[in-house]
């Protein structure tokens, strides 16, 4: 039964590849004739985070799933639903809550200054009479992250329960799908990078990060959720990279710090020369993790969207077959990339842990 659900899920994933084009074209349908199509704005709108879950347009009205907006203002926490802005993204609709006035402009929430009734902009389209409160809203990406967590829990907790039920720990059902992946992370990532004796401590982190990134990469490719681009968001990749950095730093042993501050086996001037390089290296490692995942996933999205935009740039359906074919091709590559990027992030994290815990050898 569970296998069937999973098969349907996979099949759906494959089918949505073809739907990718429709989701985007549907998005741009209401664009009126005289309004010039701006591919950059469209692509950025898709790639970036958003308040509210825009699903589709229906008879000129946007249909979207409202999400809670949580703001930390001077007066404390203010919450309201994103639907209060009535799909406005140009700062025209002012939402008043607890005596505070808010506008949404380019997916950013601004708090109007005391006495102001409407937002005013300077030449560079920066609001002049408003400030930006700390925004802890449940955005599209946060929402999709929770959906992915729910899916992860559903898959892995039910897989783990299979082991208890079946005798001799023989994997059945979804466990037989999950187990090779888990064993892969253990045997191909953790063991060779960290070593036989120490890998066990890091297994939960490596497994969680691998599947968390992978499933969010996959979710980013599903067009029906409007390409929630969580793993292509720098905040997401930065957070995960910081976790890797913290774990690396905490588990660093004497040997690790010695290699950073006083490189053994080289002459003293070299030791002094290498010290700043190694200290910078400590930080460039997680930064490279952050940028690699962000750039790879975002680039994939941008390519697919740009290819689809060609139809609207050239304003002819004749381009459509080419666009669809190319974006189908890129999407298939992206499916591979989802796994590769998750794998790279995990294996590099494991490599850093392995470097931090490596024993001195002569």
């Amino acid at each position: 039964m569970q296998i069937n659900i999973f098969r349907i899920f996979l099949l759906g994933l494959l089918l949505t590849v073809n739907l990718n084009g429709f989701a985007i074209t549907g998005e741009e349908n209401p664009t009126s004739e005289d309004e010039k199509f701006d591919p950059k704005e469209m692509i950025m709108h898709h790639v970036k985070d958003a308040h509210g879950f825009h699903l589709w347009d229906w008879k000129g009205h946007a249909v979207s799933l409202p999400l809670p907006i949580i703001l930390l203002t001077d007066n404390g926490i203010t919450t309201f639903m994103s639907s209060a802005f009535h799909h406005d993204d140009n700062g025209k609709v002012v939402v008043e809550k607890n005596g505070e006035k808010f506008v949404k402009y380019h997916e950013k929430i601004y708090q109007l200054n005391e006495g102001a009734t409407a937002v005013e902009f300077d030449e560079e389209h920066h609001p002049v009479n408003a400030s930006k409160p700390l925004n802890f809203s449940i955005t599209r990406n946060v929402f999709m992250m929770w959906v992915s967590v729910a899916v992860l829990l559903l898959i892995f907790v039910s897989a783990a329960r299979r082991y208890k039920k079946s005798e001799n720990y023989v994997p059945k059902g979804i466990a037989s799908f999950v187990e090779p992946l888990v064993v892969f992370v253990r045997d191909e990532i953790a063991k060779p990078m960290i070593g036989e004796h120490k890998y066990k401590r890091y297994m939960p982190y490596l497994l969680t990060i691998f599947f968390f990134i992978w499933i969010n990469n996959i979710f980013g490719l599903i067009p029906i959720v409007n390409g929630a681009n969580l793993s292509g968001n720098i905040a997401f990749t930065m957070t995960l990279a910081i976790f890797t950095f913290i774990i690396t730093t905490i588990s660093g042993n004497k040997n690790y710090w010695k290699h950073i501050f006083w490189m053994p086996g080289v002459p003293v001037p070299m030791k002094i020369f290498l010290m700043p390089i190694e200290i910078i290296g400590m930080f460039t490692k997680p930064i490279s993790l952050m940028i690699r995942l962000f750039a790879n996933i975002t680039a994939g999205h941008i390519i697919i969207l740009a290819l689809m935009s060609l139809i609207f740039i050239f304003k002819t359906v004749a381009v459509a077959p080419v666009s669809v074919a190319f974006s189908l091709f890129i999407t298939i590559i992206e499916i591979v990339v989802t796994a590769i990027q998750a794998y790279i992030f995990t294996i590099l994290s494991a490599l850093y842990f392995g470097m931090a815990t490596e024993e001195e050898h002569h």
Partner: protein
Amino acid sequence: MDLVTPGIGLVFWTALTFLILLFILRKFAWKPILGAVSEREDSIKDALTEAEKAREEMQHLKSDNERILKEARAERDTMLKEAREIKDNMINEAKEEAREQANKMIEQAKTTIENEKLAAITDLKNQVADLSIDIAEKVVKKELSTKEKQLELVEDMLGDIKLN
């Protein structure tokens, strides 16, 4: 620039969500799955070592059996050989004994025959002697039935004595 500016909200929610996910999955997914996998691997390894051990033992037993069989066969051969030797000895001894017995018997028979023969000869001699005496008696009786003859004899004998 917006694209590469991390939003504080998403950082916060990602960190919180990830930590909770890590905690839950560690407890309810990774531990049971990894435990089950390693337990199974251990049991497979154990089973393989056990099988290897059993195989070795089997080999050992087989060679032992072969050795015992060989020994038994050798023992049987020696026993057979010994028995044959004993048999031969016995036959030889028996033959020897029989021959000796026979010789003895022949010897005895010979002695007996000799004795009998001697006895018979003696007996015959005696009888001949008796007969001779009888005959002599009769002859003498007849010869000396008259006086003249008796005198003649005496004369003869006396003549013989003189001659001597």
